[in-house]
């Protein structure tokens, strides 16, 4: 699955600003992301392109495998899922708040801007995690714009955003950060940056940024599509030399089998001949 970079935000006063000005509470659902608002402030964002709280905490081993579903069923109806994760002793309040905000910010990057024609608002809808922390719509959009500016500095390498990449082995000893080395270890030419981010439970934005930086440093490249099996050219030779001159061109002809090949002492052939004879007699 690719990781589309949405176009730059155009209108300064978008849907999110209007919701903030009107201090609405509910869910603003765009084409692939959803913003949950409380009194006009954003307290949860989900987007298909960004690993959410569950993916991050599960990858880090913070929440046991069935723990997430248990939390949804137990504390979801009261909209206090976040506090439930803390009360179970799986993480501290500080960890919950930081992880939640990191996931919110990452999702907002891919969900913004919300196209007005493809966004619907459902008043009163709340997220089961509850309002762990709130961020103002203005601050969130400014933060997203700053992140976008970082990626834009590496725009010439945007081709690697949606492609599986592989490390350039000859340059493996070059200077990299630990985050980049982790990506290089996982870059196998089969998974896109988006899939790597999900597998590692890490920020999809940071993954894109690191992948673009690695591409800019010449440390990764997009593998060539597997070539079709080579077709034999008439007259081509194994060592790659061009075929001989036209006067030596032969028209291909079917050769009859060498007669001696049919005279064999192999008992299997004799058996097959007897079988054929028997079958013909029964026709």
């Amino acid at each position, binding site marked *: 699955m690719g990781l589309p970079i949405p176009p730059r935000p155009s209108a300064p006063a978008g849907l999110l600003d209007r919701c903030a000005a009107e201090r609405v509470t509910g869910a603003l659902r765009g084409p692939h992301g959803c913003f949950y608002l409380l009194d006009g402030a954003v307290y949860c964002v989900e987007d298909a392109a960004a690993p959410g709280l569950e993916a*991050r*905490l599960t*990858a*880090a*081993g*913070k929440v046991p495998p069935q723990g997430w579903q248990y939390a949804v069923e137990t504390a979801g109806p009261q909209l206090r899922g976040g506090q439930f994760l*803390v009360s179970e002793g799986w993480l*501290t*309040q*500080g*960890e*919950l*708040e*930081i*992880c939640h*905000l*990191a996931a919110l*910010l990452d999702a907002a990057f891919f969900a913004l801007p919300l196209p007005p024609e493809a966004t619907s608002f459902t008043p009163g809808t709340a997220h089961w995690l509850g309002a762990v*922390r709130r*961020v103002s719509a203005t*601050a*969130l959009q*400014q*933060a*997203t714009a*700053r*992140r976008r500016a*970082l990626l834009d500095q590496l725009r010439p390498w945007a081709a690697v955003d949606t492609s599986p990449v592989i490390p350039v082995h000859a340059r493996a000893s070059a*200077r*990299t*950060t*630990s985050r980049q*080395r982790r990506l290089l270890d996982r870059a196998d030419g089969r998974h896109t940056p988006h899939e790597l981010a999900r597998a*590692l*439970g*890490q*920020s999809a*934005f*940071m993954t894109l*940024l690191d992948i673009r*930086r690695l591409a800019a440093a010449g440390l990764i490249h997009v593998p060539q599509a597997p070539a079709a099996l080579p077709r034999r050219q008439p007259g081509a030779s194994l060592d790659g030399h061009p075929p001989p001159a036209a006067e030596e061109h032969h028209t291909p002809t079917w050769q009859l089998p060498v007669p001696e090949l049919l005279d064999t002492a192999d008992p299997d052939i004799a058996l097959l001949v007897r079988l054929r004879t028997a079958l013909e007699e029964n026709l």
Partner: protein
Amino acid sequence: MPGIDQVLSQAMGIPGVLGAGLIDWTSGLTLGTAGQAPHGDHDAAAADTAEVVQAVTRNATFDTAGTAGPALEDLIITAADSYHLIRFVHTAFDSQTCLCLWLDRAQANLAVARLRLRDLAAELVPS
């Protein structure tokens, strides 16, 4: 265990502190604030701090600890009248967060402030 607001309010008890904040250093988003900010603008301070942190994190020069855990701990900026102390908050899950302290140079002890901030980061996210 304390949340962001409790830790920042404890940070205000460090001698000489003028203001404190928790920021996401990839975007400059303010995750929490307490006290004053330079020029009275916490959001601008967070955005400027994020640029400093990014300059350090994107370069391998400051990341030489190999694969054994996170390498960066503090960034310290000393100025004529103040100190800026930035502490990376390391988490088991992926996040890009740091605690920031703005200190009055005449009142603060840089070594004490650094150790107190380290302990507060560990309270926010136990290692």
